[in-house]
Structures are given as C-alpha cells and as structure tokens.
C-alpha cells in the first residue's frame, strides 16, 4: 500500500515529549471515524500507527498527536511546517458513538489515551442533545503531563460536560485530585443503566477502569475499550498485532469489554 503525502501545516508542542501535527490532506479532505488510526511514515525512517485525534466533522485537516519514544516517533515529532509525512489509512474499528445516544456517556482516559478519545468529545458536542450527561474522566502521571490542558480547561467551563481530572502524584499547590482513575469512576454520578463508556489508556488502567465501571453497574457490552498491539501493516496481513484470535488493526482497536475481558487475563497473550 502506497502512502499519500500530507504536508505539515502546524506543529504544536503539547508536553515535553509530545507534539500534535496538523496535516493537510492532499486531496483537500480526509474522512475518518473516532477511534481509527493511520500509519504515519517518516521518509526513510519508518512507519508507526497513530490514533487520529481531530474533529471527525472537520475533514479539512488530519490531526495526530505523537509521543517521541523511538526512532520513528522522534523523527515525526521533529517535523516542521512544510515537511511531508506519508499517510496510510484510516484503519480500524471506530468507537460506537451512535450506540451511546439516548443515555449517559462516560469517557475514561489515561495518559496519551486521551488522544483517540478526543474525537468522541468533538462528535458528541456537535449533536449534544442526542446524549444524556457526558463525563470525561482523565488521569495522567502529573499535572504537567495532562494532555490538551487548554482544551480540558475549555471543556471544564462548559455546563454540558463534566470533566474530572486526577494525577498519580503532584506537588503542593495542585488543587485537583491525586489518585487513580477508577476512583473517579466511583465518584462520578452517571446513571449506570443508560451509560455507554469509552475507555482508553495503558492496559492496566483499562482493566481496572472497566472492572470499576462494571462494579458500578454498567453493562459489559456497553463498555468499549481501545486495545494496542504491534500494528504494522494496518489491515491484517503482517500478523504482528494479533491479540488472541483477533487482529487489533482490523477487529479493533475498539472492542466491547465483554470480548476482551477474559483474554486480557491470560498472561503473554
């Protein structure tokens, strides 16, 4: 599969090691659904999978947030406006946002896991009256590692969104919560019977959060989680992303919790 070349329109430094690229679709438009990902190719260096983090109703840009942890991601975070990135995709099964209409929505994010969930918030806000109460529960390691902090502030000031943040640890002076995300789940007063939850973050956090949601009375088939494995081709022919009998790139990355709960407990699966 050949990449399409998208010029970088803007680079935004989010955190010390994390950058958001705004890319220009060469054909003028790029469509995707919340939860999908692309394979981004840094010319001559390599390719990595990245969640799309922009507004699905705005097809004029492709927005991707990248944390520089290896050769390819570091090459991508070093790009400047005008540079070109190879893009393949979008790939993967999206968050079932439509299925959440008519009830409460609980968005649970950890660390960089907020990036694939941001499109869900954008989507919901364009048709806010189709949903009940909407909660964004977000945890990160420390206050200066909260992703999209400006945006979070904006969301917090809205009356139609309930944003609860927590960090693993903070210095004196932080007036927010310190603790784990499952604790936010206990504190948020969503209606479990009508709730659809979308969970994304480190696998350990997903496990404890989904279990916490079930404990509060949310039905496992209404909890959706985004899994991660070593995705390389993006469409199920390279074999690397297998998670049990599924290909995360094609059967996921979004799965209903009841389908992955038992699989996740098998070591080294």
């Amino acid at each position, binding site marked *: 599969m050949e990449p399409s070349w998208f010029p970088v329109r803007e680079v935004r430094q989010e955190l010390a090691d994390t950058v958001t690229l705004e890319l220009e679709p060469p054909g003028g438009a790029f469509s995707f659904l919340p939860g999908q990902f692309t394979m981004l190719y840094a010319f001559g260096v*390599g390719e990595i999978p990245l969640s799309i983090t922009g507004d699905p109703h705005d097809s004029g840009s492709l927005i991707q947030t990248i944390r520089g942890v290896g050769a390819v991601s570091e090459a991508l975070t070093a790009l400047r406006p005008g540079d070109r990135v190879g893009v393949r995709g979008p790939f993967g099964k999206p968050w079932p946002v439509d299925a959440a209409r008519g009830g409460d929505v609980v968005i649970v994010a950890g660390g960089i896991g907020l990036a694939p969930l941001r499109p869900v918030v954008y989507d919901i806000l364009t048709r806010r009256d189709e949903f009940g109460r909407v909660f964004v529960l977000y945890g990160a390691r420390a206050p200066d590692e909260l992703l999209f902090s400006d945006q979070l502030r904006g969301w917090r000031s809205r009356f139609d969104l309930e944003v609860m943040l927590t960090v693993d640890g903070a210095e004196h002076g932080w007036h927010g919560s310190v603790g784990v995300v499952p604790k936010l789940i206990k504190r948020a007063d969503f209606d479990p019977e009508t709730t659809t939850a979308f969970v994304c973050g480190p696998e350990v956090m997903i496990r404890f959060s989904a279990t916490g949601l079930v404990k509060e009375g949310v039905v496992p088939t209404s909890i959706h989680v985004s899994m991660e494995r070593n995705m390389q081709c993006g469409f199920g*022919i*390279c*074999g690397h992303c*297998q998670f049990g009998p599924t290909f995360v790139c094609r059967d996921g990355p979004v799965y209903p919790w009841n389908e992955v709960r038992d699989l996740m407990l098998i070591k*080294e699966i």
Partner: protein
Amino acid sequence: MDLSPILTDRRGVDWLIAHLEAEGYEVVGPTIADGAVVYGRVRSTEDLPIGWTDVQGPGEYRLVQRDDDALFGYVVGPTSPKQFLHPPQVKVWTGRAHGDGVETIPLDPAPRRAFLGVRPCDLAAIDIQDRVFLGGSIHDAVYEDRRRSSIIIAIDCTEPGETCFCSSLGTGPAASDGFDLAMTELPDGTILVRSGSDIGDAIKTAMGGEPATEAAIDRAHLMMEAAAERMGRSLQTAGLKELLYRAARSPHWDEVAARCLTCSNCTMVCPTCFCAVVDDEASLNGDVATRTRRWDSCFSLDFSYIHGGSVRTSGAARYRQWMTHKLASWQDQFGVIGCVGCGRCITWCPVGIDITAEATAIRDRAVSGLEDPSLKEAFE
C-alpha cells in the same frame, strides 16, 4: 472446459516446459540443491529430481535414490511456491524526495511464473494465502501481482512421507482444485494430465496426448486411495479450535518450551505462514527511501514488541501463539485451519517437535480430566 484426462510421458513434460517458456513464463519446479528437493528454475526434465526420493522424520531429511526414473518420486522439500508468491525479501516501495514532494519510483514488474509440480498440500496452502492476502477489502499488491500472473501445474502425491498428514485435513493426496493442470505419475512412466481451468485446458489441448485409458485412470485412483492410507501421521481436527483456546493456561506449553529453540525454522518452511516485517532504508544523502518486506516469525522476540517490551517473551507463550494461531485462531480469521498437513515443520524442526503429537498431548490432557472437567465431556 474438457475434463477428460490425457496420457503423456516424460517427453510431454519437456514439451510443457518449452511451451510455457515460449509463452513467457519462468518455469519453477522441484530440483536437487543443497541436499534437498527445492524449487528452482527448470529448463527441461533434466533439472527434475529424476530417480530421487526424500526420507523424512522429525528433525530428519535425507535424499535417497530410487530404483526407477520417476520424475516426481519425492515427498515434499523445504520450499513451497510461497517462496515466489510471498517472497522472503521483496521491495514494496521506493520513493525520491525533492523540493516539491515525494515521487514514487515504480517497482520492477514481477516475473510471470509457471509452477510445475505443486503438491496438493501446497495447492491448499496457496488457497489459504489467497484468503490472507486477497480476502480482505485491501489486497496485498505484491502477492496479487505474482499470483495473478502464475500458472499452476499440480502433481498428485503417490508417496506420502513419514511426517505427512494431509488426509487428516482433506488437502491431499490428490489435487482437487486450485490448479490449471494436474498430473499423476504412474509407475510405468506414463503421466495422466487433467485440466482445472480454461488456461490449463488450452495447454492440455495443445499438448495433444492420447485420451487416458480406463486402466490408467483406475490405476491412478487406486494409487491415490493407497496413498491416503499411508500417511505417516494424523491430526484429529474435531473440536480442535475450542480445545486450543481453552488450553491457553495449560502447563503443556512450558513442556514444549523446554524443547523448542524458537529458531523459527517451522515458520520459514510452513507454506501458509505469512507474517512479515518491513525494513526501512534511506540512501546516504537521504533522497531515496526504500521499504523492503521480509519474512518475520512469531517466534522472534520482538515480534510482539510494544512500549519498551514484548508481550510474548517466554518460549511457552511464543510456541502457544504459533500453534494456537495455526490450528485454531486461523479458523476464526480465515474460515479454514491454517495447517495443510505437509509435515515440513516436523521434518525441519532441529529438535523434532511434532505438531500432531503436541495436539494429541493437549487433547489427552483435557480428556483425562487433568484440567477442566467440562472439557472431558466435550472432547471424549
């Protein structure tokens, strides 16, 4: 399409090879090289392993001379058409960057190949790889290009080997479909040829052999029936998927891991294994980038790498992944079992691990109630 077989002989095969070359096909078939029967360029029947067979066992392979001049008297060698349709190393993209953007440099077109002497197990493997590479909404261009330009001439198997179990999977010893032409070599040196496609039919007509006699056809049938009974091994497929899914926590995997070297020989010789990785390179001045795909293996330590570590580091987890994928998950992914019973993984495993024996061991554990009592009921 004219389904009636014709009868020919060695000269007919030479005619076939010459005809295919004249039509612009590179003929690939069994040859002797490096002490084994391997696929290579065939320019005439001289290049075939005439009068040779191969004796195999777990971790053993050796060539042995026959007492006749059979053209296709061997079992199956370590290579399969996979080597050509899904090459061990192939360029998948090259591009040049310049001021205005990136320009794709077109790749060399794939050579057109005719595969002469494809065993039925390998035919089934090609069908399986078709499902992998061409079954989804996005096709793999490399495989598609090579597959569409291939001609396939099957050779029925009259000499199943010690490690063969195609009968258990319904993939042999006779070729049923997926070929352009299929041959059956009889002991008297005559060869039955039947067509399986319009292209094959045209070639068969041009070949001009005599219509096959009833006696020859009957002889061929009897040989196939006998071959089906002489398999060296067998695999019980009933309930295999559930059995393996439930065995995820079995201590059996640690027992195999104590023997398995995770050397990935099995994945290399397996005609259905398809995992591949892409390597990236750039020219010294950074102008030209190349992406090259090469075979990977789920046995490699970084196969499942994410976030600073691999998901499957233990040998037990990696063997479990391979076997569960091959015999169980494959069914949910592609609608068939991923194994064709060719026995190569058993023959070419340096320590002789036998996938059929491992499946039996897991089944026995379940049935004897060592693990889950409800399994005993399901699998007895």
